[in-house]
């Protein structure tokens, strides 16, 4: 159908809601800059940017070095287009289109089996994400923006006015500035763009924390480790609107709430096993967090000292123990209507999750994936900008967190006769979950909420869970300005909750603490930094195929010992100068020339009239 055709070139806008009436106001102008501002309306929207991998590119970009200027039409009126047009498409219209062509309800722009190449089993055609259309993974040589609500109504008015006023010499146009450096430089895959430095690799900083804190002075760490893993990054067609409420932030919220509940339990040092909480980023783009974490564990790097990969449970009975623990936890929570079930045996294996990376590394790893679905995703908006707070239920998160907290305690204590009162004391704080939802999944209050501001000075108010790019050299003690807000918040939160109270008074700090066992939390808040005893570290998350050397990123050749590295697409994001969208009215070229000719005519006519008048006056005076 014409809408998806390349010629004539179509430029899509998407908007989420259709109904808002906009009352215009005549602003009084007092200066030339005011005039300039009222002539050019800046539209606020979320762009879709150019990403590249080893074999090509995806996403959107301006086709050249220039801004794209096109007149605005609504999708339903855009039937026969002969010239460059900016098309205003509503979400309903887009979903209708997808339904008629792909038979999809709901909107997930990614594949039907996300990241199938990392699956530890061969059935890569299984449809975990039945709503997946895959449109996010195609390349588009035109700009696409998602409009906010206010911009939507403004642009609808403009498009309607364009329809009405078909006088042929003025029209309202949209000017798209989505010029990507990789398009300008002609580098169309990761390797060439990294070499030319026109792009940066995707990545961020994962956080791990242990409960109880590891005593670094002990040369031999012997307690077996139970690892609780959650992911904190999502993806979407529009870079800055990746909330990922159901996938994966609901998991992150459960982890944070479980840590909070477990932090109120005493006697961790007496238990037989050690808990380690790991919050990974970059999982949506090739399991960057988990692969890099496993790599660093093998390398025994500083950032993961205290963790010995052999201590992560490989015992074959571990899975059964875990299932028993979950059952016992479910029983202890009987009053709250929570149920744990094994997944359907028709499933080919575990669903797409970080455990896939662990299993591919070592197929003997014992692990369990806790999900809210059985045979396929129930999230209709997986990796979509629509996966927002309305898509999740806080009581489900609380239930999952309670289950996890109690099961972990049961597993760690490894003790069959445990008083139910001990378990009964492990309770998840419901208001904490709701507060975290408001902080991490909405713009009001967003990252300026009390809880977040207690720990960090956030750079943005509206949270976005896109992994972002790696700025500078990745390190275990990164410059905090290069670490994104959510990672810093999670680090501080986990460090605070897993810390053991100190006997002496806590010393204030602004960066690092003198004692190796201590970390400085709340360092960004002026005067509130304190040193606490905790083992909480950042681990960079970036592809195992990349190495940062003397200021440039190099793509390493595939290594036989790194099976995941050979299927890694090595995602990078193009650099750009500015991204913007503005709308203004233009005049036809003919009209401009008409005005110029008019001006010249007036001048020449005036000259002749003056010459004529002068000769008449001279004649009249001579007569006198």
């Amino acid at each position, binding site marked *: 159908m014409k809408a998806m055709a390349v010629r004539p070139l179509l430029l899509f806008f998407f908007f989420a809601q259709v109904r808002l009436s906009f009352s215009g106001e005549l602003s009084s102008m007092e200066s*030339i800059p005011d005039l300039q501002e009222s002539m050019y309306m800046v539209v606020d929207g979320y762009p879709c940017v150019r990403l590249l991998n080893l074999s090509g590119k995806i996403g959107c970009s301006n086709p050249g070095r220039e801004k794209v200027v096109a007149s605005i039409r609504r999708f339903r009126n855009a039937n026969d287009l002969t010239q460059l047009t900016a098309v205003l498409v509503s979400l309903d219209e887009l979903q209708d289109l997808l339904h008629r062509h792909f038979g999809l309800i709901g909107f997930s722009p990614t594949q039907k089996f996300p990241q199938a190449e990392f699956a530890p089993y061969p059935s890569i055609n299984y449809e975990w994400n039945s709503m997946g259309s895959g449109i996010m993974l195609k390349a588009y040589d035109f700009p696409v923006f998602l409009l906010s609500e206010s911009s939507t109504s403004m642009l609808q008015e403009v498009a309607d006015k364009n329809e009405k006023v078909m006088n042929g010499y003025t029209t309202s146009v949209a000017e798209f500035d989505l010029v990507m450096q990789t398009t300008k430089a002609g580098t169309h895959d990761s390797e060439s763009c990294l070499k030319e430095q026109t792009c940066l690799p995707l990545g961020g900083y994962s956080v791990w924390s242990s409960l109880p804190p590891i005593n670094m002075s002990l040369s031999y760490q012997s307690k077996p480790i139970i690892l609780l893993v959650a992911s904190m990054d999502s993806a979407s067609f529009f870079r800055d609107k990746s909330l990922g409420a159901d996938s994966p932030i609901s998991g992150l919220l459960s982890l944070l709430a479980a840590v909070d509940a477990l932090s109120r339990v005493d006697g961790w040092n007496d238990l037989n096993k050690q808990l380690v909480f790991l919050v990974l980023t970059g999982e949506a783009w090739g399991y960057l967090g988990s692969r890099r974490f496993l790599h660093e564990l093998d390398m025994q790097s500083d950032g993961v000292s205290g963790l010995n990969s052999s201590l992560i449970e490989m015992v074959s009975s571990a899975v059964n123990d875990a299932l028993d623990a979950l059952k016992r936890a479910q029983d202890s929570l009987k009053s709250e209507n929570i149920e744990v079930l094994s997944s359907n045996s028709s499933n080919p294996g575990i669903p797409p999750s970080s455990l896939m990376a662990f299993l591919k590394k070592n197929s003997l790893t014992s692990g369990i994936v806790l999900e809210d679905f059985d045979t396929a995703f129930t999230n209709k908006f997986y990796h979509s900008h629509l996966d927002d707070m309305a898509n999740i239920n806080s009581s489900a998160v609380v239930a999952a967190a309670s289950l996890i907290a109690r099961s972990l305690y049961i597993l760690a204590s490894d003790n069959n006769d445990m008083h139910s009162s001990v378990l009964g004391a492990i309770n998840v704080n419901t208001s904490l979950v709701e507060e975290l939802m408001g902080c991490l999944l909405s713009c009001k209050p967003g990252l300026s909420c009390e809880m977040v501001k207690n720990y960090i000075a956030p750079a943005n108010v509206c949270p976005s869970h896109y992994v972002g790019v790696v700025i500078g050299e990745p390190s275990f003690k990164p410059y905090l300005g290069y670490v994104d807000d959510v990672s810093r918040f999670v680090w501080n939160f986990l460090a605070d909750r897993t810390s053991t109270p100190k006997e002496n008074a806590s010393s204030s700090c602004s960066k690092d603490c003198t004692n190796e066992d201590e970390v400085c939390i709340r360092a960004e808040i002026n005067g509130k930094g304190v040193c606490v005893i905790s083992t909480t570290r950042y681990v960079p998350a970036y592809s195992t195929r990349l190495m940062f050397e003397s200021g440039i990123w190099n793509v390493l050749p595939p290594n036989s010992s790194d099976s995941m590295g050979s299927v890694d697409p090595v995602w990078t994001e193009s650099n750009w100068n500015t991204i913007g969208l503005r709308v*203004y*009215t233009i*005049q036809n070229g003919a009209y*401009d020339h008409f005005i110029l000719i*008019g*001006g010249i005519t*007036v*001048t020449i006519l005036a000259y002749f009239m003056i010459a004529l008048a002068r000769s008449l006056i001279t004649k009249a005076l001579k007569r006198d």
Partner: protein
Amino acid sequence: MTVAAGIGYALIALGPSLSLFVAVISKKPFLILTVLSSTLLWLISLIVLSGIWRAFLPLKSTTWWPFALLIISSVGFQEGLRVLFWKVYKRLEDTLDAFADRVGKPRLFLTDKMQIALAGGLGHGVAHAVFFCLSLLTPAFGPATFYVDRCPQMPFFLISAIIALAFVTIHTFSMVIAFNGYAEGNTTDQYFVPVVHLVAGMVVKSASA
């Protein structure tokens, strides 16, 4: 609207003054000086007026009379300045005539006097056009155009260029008529000029307010 349209607007506002300058004024250096000094005088009058009115601006009033007061006071001040200009010119005329007598050259003709008045008026007109139209034209050289809701048929810049052209004409010929009126003592002519100036000012202000 691109460079072409920008130049077009500038020419509409100031083209005729340019033609007048080239055809009449540039032939006599004295007239060039007259144009410059009357431009300067007009700008000074604007500065003084804005200095006086600064305390009361911006007028955020919905009633019409503060605006009317503004226009009446401005026009009155400028007309008063015109009378002053006339007086200075009279003295200058006497000086020039005395000088002409001394060196045996002819005295100022009527055409010369009218040309001086024309130059004076042109100075005022050019100052008005530059100040009120040309200064707005910078955005006109960009890609966008601008239509005001109150007049959706023509771009804003075209309207301001045409109004500037009208004012150039008014100022130029007002000076000639006024000087003629003062010289011959013709009261009709003397009152005609301020009235036209006032009416034009009121019309433009009421249209844009």
